[in-house]
């Protein structure tokens, strides 16, 4: 492990974000081309190295505890990294690195790239903070950093549609974060601690009925961020209006962080209240509604946004079931979802980049123009619908089996039917974009530029690898699943001898 790796993982993007405006000004003065892009890519890759350096210790079963300022955990702020934190951190940094590479060409036609990359690195700092911290108030602060950067990123193009979406998102989401703050205050009042490990330990001695209000507030707050039905209304607008690189980052990384917060705080902290079934139920509702809403969409990005809500349902269902297999399936699906959802949004971005629209009524017959992109879209569509031999099949199958083992046949049947619906709306999308009659003016559309194709093909390859060799994925999420089920180990690692 690189010394001080946990704190450096948060500081590096923060530092780079503050430096970015200076880099932009210097680059303009000296006439250096693409300085901002290279700087952002270098920062994210360095971040990847830092996070990866923590991997051996955590996979070996250790919980890394980093005390800020040397204060003992129940009183001071600490960063605590177990398998779950590290899995999420790896997903976040990996997706961010790919999105940074993708933005290199995708964002070249936009002005104000100083601000874009500053916000990009700032949202990365916020996400790493939420992921790595072991203190619930600190988690709120980083969550707020993440949310505020994302409002600005949604409004980045500054047209009427994106500003409307951003304001809608801002109002709904600030309501959610204020719920989280209120809930943190209530918990501190009742339990007298802000440290997550300490809270877990002290929850045994609190009357459960007093915890219902904080639980509801946390669930609503994090539910808004991950766009769980019925709190999803901001998401399709925001994803449609944001630049596709941003939408890819949100769907792959930010949602993953939101689900992490949901698991760490709602599921692990309030586990004694039996929240598993509530999460599974909400997951089922999200699944069904997301699928039906996606069926009727005419815009590719809106369709992908609704399908994101649908896939979120599977993750919540798997984790809500609470068995070893269920949690493994849920976390594996979280990992897979980040891969193919990011890829599909990137493909939507390339179509917008080359054609200028993502309205499926105005597209068609692009198979001949962009065969590689079409293949990648097909792989992504099959993976998200859970068709073997793609990675989506492996994780969805694990969730189905977990449902049957628990005796919840109805859950499994609903999940299967929704998978079929997913296949239906993705085939519809594939058909209307890449097959069928090609409008005359699309005759000269070219294949995606190579530097945008690299991240897409990398993700497509991952879809195939984890589909053919699913045990690799299961091995990858096993430390995270063990961390979710073993909160005692987390408590004793954080609190030590205190």
């Amino acid at each position, binding site marked *: 492990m690189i010394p001080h790796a946990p704190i450096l993982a948060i*500081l590096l993007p923060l*530092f780079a974000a503050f430096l970015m405006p200076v880099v932009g000004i210097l680059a303009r003065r000296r006439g250096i081309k693409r300085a901002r892009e290279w700087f952002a890519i270098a920062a994210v890759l360095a971040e990847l190295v830092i996070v990866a350096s923590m991997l051996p210790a955590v996979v070996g079963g250790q919980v890394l505890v980093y*005390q*800020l300022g040397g204060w003992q955990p129940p009183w001071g702020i600490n960063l605590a990294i177990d398998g779950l934190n590290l899995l999420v951190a790896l997903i976040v940094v990996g997706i961010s690195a790919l999105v940074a590479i993708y933005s290199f060409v995708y964002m070249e036609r936009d002005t104000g790239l100083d601000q874009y990359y500053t916000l990009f690195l700032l949202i990365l700092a916020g996400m790493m903070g939420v992921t790595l911290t072991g203190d619930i108030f600190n988690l709120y602060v980083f969550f707020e950093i993440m949310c505020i950067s994302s409002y600005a990123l949604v409004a980045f193009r500054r047209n009427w549609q994106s500003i409307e979406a951003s304001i809608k998102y801002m109002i709904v989401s600030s309501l959610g974060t204020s719920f989280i703050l209120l809930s943190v205050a209530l918990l501190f009042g009742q339990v007298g601690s802000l440290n997550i490990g300490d809270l877990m330990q002290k929850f045994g001695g609190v009357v459960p009925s007093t915890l219902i209000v904080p639980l509801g507030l946390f669930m609503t707050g994090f539910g808004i961020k991950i766009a769980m039905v019925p709190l999803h209304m901001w998401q399709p607008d925001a994803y449609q209006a944001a630049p596709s690189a941003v939408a890819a980052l949100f769907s792959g990384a930010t949602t993953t962080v939101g689900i992490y917060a949901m698991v760490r705080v709602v599921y692990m902290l309030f586990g004694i209240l039996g929240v598993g079934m509530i999460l599974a139920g909400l997951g089922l509702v999200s699944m069904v509604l997301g699928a039906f809403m996606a069926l009727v969409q005419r815009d590719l990005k809106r369709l992908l946004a609704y399908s994101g809500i649908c896939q979120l349902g599977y993750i919540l269902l798997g984790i809500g079931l609470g068995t070893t297999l269920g949690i493994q399936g849920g976390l594996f699906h979280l990992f897979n979802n980040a891969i193919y959802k990011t890829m599909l949004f990137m493909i939507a971005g390339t179509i917008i980049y080359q054609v200028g629209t993502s309205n499926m009524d105005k597209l068609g017959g692009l198979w001949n123009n962009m065969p590689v992109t079409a293949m990648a879209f097909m792989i992504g569509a099959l993976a998200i619908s859970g068709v073997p031999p793609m990675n989506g099949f492996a994780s969805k199958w694990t969730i189905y089996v977990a449902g049957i083992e628990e005796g919840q046949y109805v859950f499994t049947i609903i999940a299967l039917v929704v998978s079929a619906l997913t296949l239906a709306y993705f085939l519809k999308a594939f058909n209307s974009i890449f097959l069928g009659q090609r409008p005359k003016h699309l005759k000269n559309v070219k294949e995606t530029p190579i530097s945008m194709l690299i991240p897409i093909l990398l993700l497509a390859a991952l879809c195939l690898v984890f589909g053919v060799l699913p045990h690799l994925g299961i091995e990858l999420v096993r430390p995270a699943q063990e961390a979710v089920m073993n909160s005692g180990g987390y408590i004793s690692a954080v609190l030590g001898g205190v």
Partner: protein
Amino acid sequence: MAGMTVIVRTIARLLFPFTFLFGAYIVLHGHLTPGGGFPGGVIIAASVVMLLLAYGIERAQKRMGLLQAEVLESIGGVAIVVLGLFGLLLGAFFLQNVFPLGDLGQLFSAGNLPLLYLGVGIKVTAGIILIFYAMLFAFREEKE
């Protein structure tokens, strides 16, 4: 923005150094008296905004342009992180104090705290002026 009458201009001009000085005092005595980087930075920014209202945007921009504000904001942010990294490299923890503590109540005391307040003060000043400019320019764009 065209500026205001001669009365407002004169008073603004007379008040500006004192307001600025008061803001700087609040920032520099952050570790000794109530206040600190944020309130001090807001006061300094308010003094510039006052000039801007009285004299119009061109004169104010001469004192503090958009580019200067942007650079200053970055410098303020970077200063805080660098100070923190000093603690990490020379001490053991992020933001740990590595400077001599000095005597209680003296201006040059309390280790890295005054420097941190200075960083916060610069960042807040530049940030608030930038927000003000951003709102001005947003309206100006619409008019054209």
